């Protein structure tokens, strides 16, 4: 497949079947650097499956995924997980922070796993925590912070490696609207400063309104809403 010009990550004709369930049935996707794309659609339509395929967490049964000029399915498992660690960041709905570590240690963790020594890793972590306005929680453990604060810590952790693509699956799903929108504001601001692309799965229109463009997934097929009009 030839990726659309300027595309960073794109997918064509994705199909994924779980037993009798067709989770993806010809889904398409494409995103540029610095672009925020919302993935919307009813529950069970295949949004998370699409995100997992794009991030190389789930292997589709057929179809192609290109990241820059590499085909994801042509990589070995080791290459794919190396790519996830170096180029991708992840935020999910809940439960992603390691409860035994302090918040700053949590944020520094991806850098530590990539071999960065403790001090510079925690310095970089603090910088991101400042940007997400949670630097005062550095020494607290996840159990001692609120849901909204924890989610900002999780966003800081996803961005600390300055990923090229940030994958966010219902990042505000567990928050009230004020906190949810604040997280979106900070997340999109932070992504813009690093020119990261953001794949944002959400069923909330007010959250999707922070995106540049949306696609809607229905019954495993995606529709680019730009082209709907």
């Amino acid at each position, binding site marked *: 497949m030839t990726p659309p010009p300027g595309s960073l990550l794109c997918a064509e004709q994705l199909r994924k079947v779980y037993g009798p369930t067709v989770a993806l049935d010809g889904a398409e996707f494409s995103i540029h650097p610095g672009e925020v794309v919302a993935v919307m659609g009813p529950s069970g339509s295949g949004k998370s499956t699409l995100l997992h395929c794009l991030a190389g967490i789930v292997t589709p049964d057929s179809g192609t995924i290109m990241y820059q000029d590499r085909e994801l399915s042509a990589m070995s498992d080791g290459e794919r997980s190396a790519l996830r660690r170096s180029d991708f960041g992840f935020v999910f709905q809940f439960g992603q922070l390691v409860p035994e570590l302090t918040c700053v240690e949590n944020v520094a963790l991806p850098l530590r796993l990539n071999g960065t020594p403790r001090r510079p890793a925690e310095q970089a972590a603090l910088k991101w925590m400042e940007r997400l306005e949670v630097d005062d929680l550095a020494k607290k453990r996840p159990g001692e912070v609120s849901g909204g604060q924890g989610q900002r810590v999780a966003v800081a952790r996803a961005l600390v490696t300055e990923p090229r693509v940030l994958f966010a699956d219902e990042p505000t799903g567990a928050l009230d609207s004020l906190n949810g929108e604040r997280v979106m504001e900070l997340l999109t601001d932070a992504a813009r400063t690093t020119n990261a692309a953001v794949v944002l799965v959400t069923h*909330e229109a007010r959250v999707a309104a922070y995106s540049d463009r949306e696609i809607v997934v229905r019954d495993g097929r995606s529709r680019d*809403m730009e082209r709907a009009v």
Partner: protein
Amino acid sequence: MSIGHTLLGLLEAGPRHGYDLKRAFDEKFGHDRPLHYGQVYSTMSRLLKNGLVEVDAVEAGDGPERKRYAITEAGVTDVERWLTTPEKPEPYLQSTLYTKVVLALLTQRNAADVLDVQRAEHLRGMRILTDRKRKGDLADQLICDHALFHMEADLRWLELTAARLDKLRQAVTR
């Protein structure tokens, strides 16, 4: 929105001239639509006739812009009543959208497309409001939020209707 009640409310802080009222209105409430002078003066003459305001001072010369208006007791009561009476929830948009969807089904057009196009349009509007909200002050944020929640409600209805399109088709084409 009731311009009369809003102008009355602005007068509660103290007497003002018509042009001053217009300026205060535009600054606080006229984000999209500043008032015309004509609207101000026609509203004020109606309020005068109903005894809700009185002319508190008239400067030399003529023309409506010479008058300074003050709120009356009856005016204060009227503002109070307006503020304590809830607004009717307006089903304005749904009825148009519903008509479009049903008509699309009746004429064998693609009703899902009607919904999708509307959905994209709503989200486009929500993006513009969200952007304005991010750049604006607290007043902008509150005003934009209200519009955003309304558009979100419409969007949820569009989603729900899209999910029930087959049933709706059966019901209307029976």
